[in-house]
């Protein structure tokens, strides 16, 4: 086994990096892959909360990096899915406790043991961001259909391209079809047109995501959830399956239009 390291990043805060990381991890683990998520947001950890594993943390990423424990000891196994693990961030330290080469070392050690390593990046473009980008094979940029989030995503893509990392793929989160239709929100087409990278998924705006996040039960665990299904589709596309982009709404041919863009996208 040689794992793929996928880093989820965005630039702007609050667009759904952590939620995306948690749900993709669940979706991949449900398919039978062995998945480790690493919370790269040292000092502001929250992936453990979203996954509902906060009360089981003993060791964290900084303990691994500073050799206070073995990697295995810091991997918390999920209660629901056998093959899902979390390496939490330290709460009491800051980003400078870990360096980009530390992250590469940790990931290289894990690579042989698991199928997927998902890294949740902190907001911003400083040290924490560079730590999480360093080991990445694939970079998923999450954005919302908002001008400010798209601007930050553009900046992040520029930085990642400058490091010659990639492929970079785009997730547009919290799309509200009725607002888009009225022209009160950027459409996914607008976002793709500006960012000009390959689209890998669109997640509809869904209040259940907030509820499930607070409960520590990612929506991807709920077989009936629409947003959960969107995350599962991304997971499938990640491992190379072709899943057509479907409409977010029952009636509209809303997403059919940029199925074409999806095919051309990427480089």
């Amino acid at each position: 086994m040689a794992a793929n390291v996928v880093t989820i990043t965005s630039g702007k805060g609050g667009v759904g990096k952590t939620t995306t990381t948690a749900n993709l991890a669940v979706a991949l683990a449900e398919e039978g892959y062995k998945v480790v998520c690493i919370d790269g947001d040292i000092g502001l950890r929250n992936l453990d909360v979203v996954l509902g594993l906060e009360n089981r943390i003993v060791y964290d990423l900084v303990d691994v990096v500073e050799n206070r424990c073995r990697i295995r000891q810091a991997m918390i196994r999920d209660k629901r899915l056998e093959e899902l693990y979390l390496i939490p961030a330290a709460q009491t330290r800051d980003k400078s406790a870990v360096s980009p080469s530390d992250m590469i070392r940790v990931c290289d050690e894990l690579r042989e043991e698991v199928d997927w390593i998902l890294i949740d990046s902190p907001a911003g473009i400083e040290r924490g961001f560079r730590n999480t980008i360093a080991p990445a094979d694939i970079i998923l940029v999450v954005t919302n259909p908002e001008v400010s989030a798209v601007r930050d995503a553009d900046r992040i893509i520029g930085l990642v391209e400058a490091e010659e990392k990639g492929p970079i793929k785009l997730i547009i989160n919290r799309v509200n079809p009725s607002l888009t239709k009225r022209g009160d929100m950027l459409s996914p087409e607008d976002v793709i047109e500006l960012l000009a990278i390959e689209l890998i998924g669109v997640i509809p705006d869904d209040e259940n995501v907030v509820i499930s996040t607070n409960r520590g039960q990612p929506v991807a665990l709920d077989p009936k959830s629409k947003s959960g299904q969107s995350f599962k589709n991304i997971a499938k596309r990640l491992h190379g399956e072709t899943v057509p982009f479907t409409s977010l709404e029952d009636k509209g041919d809303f997403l059919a239009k940029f199925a074409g863009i999806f095919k051309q996208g990427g480089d």
Partner: protein
Amino acid sequence: METEPIIQIKGIREGLLINAESGSWDERHDKLLKLVKEKGDFFKNARVCLDVGDTALRVKSITQLRDQLSDMEITLWAILSQSEMTMNNAKTLGLETSLPTTKKEVVEEVERIDDTGEKAVFVNRTLRAGYRVEAREHVVIIGDVNPGAEIVSAGSIIVWGKLRGSASAGMEGNTKAVVCALELRPTQLRIGEHVFPPFSKKGKTFPEEAYIENDECKIEIWNKEKER
């Protein structure tokens, strides 16, 4: 043999290249750290490639330096050396051991233009948010200029793509400078002292040219035949 360590720093496309080939490793190591501390902000957030010549370095020496640099917000991403041991150790640590082959297209392009006209800076990619191109020469971009990107030129600015960031041409008072783009929708546009009125965000998909005539800001559909 005692030689005073010489440390040279130069900027390369990938960040900074530091040459530290002579002297004992400890001396070089100390001098380098001292230099970095002295220059403080200059090195902050830098990506450094270190050329150590034929010095054989142990993993411990490399990690020590890497971590010390890292504490000062500097990323050591590559080590160049003729020593096999150093190269192998650097590789194990996930560091690069060679520079990517440099693309010389930008430089060549500028020289070629020089034969027949005025100098220009040629950028063959999209400028994303946060990027800034500043030149005394003309600026030619093949690609888009996204919102949040910035071009400043003493000459003209040509964008073979969508210009949606900000563009300032003729910055040293040259009002003969022009700005053209396949889609001219800059966040802000200036030529010399003149600031253009805000552009609408939607609707235009034809090439246009902005220029100054009789102290007035003009925008026209681009047409090569046009006489001015």
